[in-house]
């Protein structure tokens, strides 16, 4: 059982380019989350999904979009990347909303 996988592991992206970060879980968890982690700021919630077919905005949603077409996948899209989106992105899931979250290995993104 893999748990949660994220792809790519790292990426260097030119400003203005579109990018999709992938997240897949095999635990049949209902809820999934995207966080960004920046030095000194901790983990900040970008978007979340309580169950397949629904999504919601977190603390810092601007510039990002998500979709949840099925239980397993929760991709995060940057429509037009900007340097301030340079960060480490973590995907997480929990069996039910608000329960213990399990994190993926992260994607390190550098926007130049």
């Amino acid at each position: 059982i893999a748990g949660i996988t994220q792809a790519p592991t790292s990426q260097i992206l030119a400003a203005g380019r579109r990018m999709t970060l992938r997240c897949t879980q095999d635990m049949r968890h209902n809820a999934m989350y995207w966080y960004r982690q920046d030095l000194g700021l901790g983990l900040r919630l970008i978007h979340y999904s309580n169950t397949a077919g629904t999504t919601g905005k977190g603390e810092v949603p601007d510039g990002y979009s998500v979709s949840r077409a099925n239980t397993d996948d929760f991709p995060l899209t940057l429509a037009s990347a900007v340097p301030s989106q340079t960060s480490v992105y973590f995907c997480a899931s929990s069996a039910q909303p608000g329960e213990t979250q399990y994190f993926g290995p992260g994607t390190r993104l550098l926007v130049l």
Partner: protein
Amino acid sequence: QQPVQSPQAVILREGEDAVINCSSSKALYSVHWYRQKHGEAPVFLMILLKGGEQKGHEKISASFNEKKQQSSLYLTASQLSYSGTYFCGTKNSGGSNYKLTFGKGTLLTVNP
């Protein structure tokens, strides 16, 4: 509302004890504690629900003081493997109970 963690950083010698605090300005429903080692994903340690319970994990335990809107993480007889950044994630009472808000983290360094 982001919980406040203190201290921001602490340096210990192996075998020493430490306490990390997590305070909220709003009534808490639950507190989740995570540890993140450098370059890795956060890993769940324990969850505390309102009711003032105390939990333990190895030589790490935590308490939840509902009245003070605070949780404390106790690391006893610290080991080198305890080094990392500790995050608390809080769920507030009365609000949307599916999102955790994380503190900025406490960097713990255990030296030989």
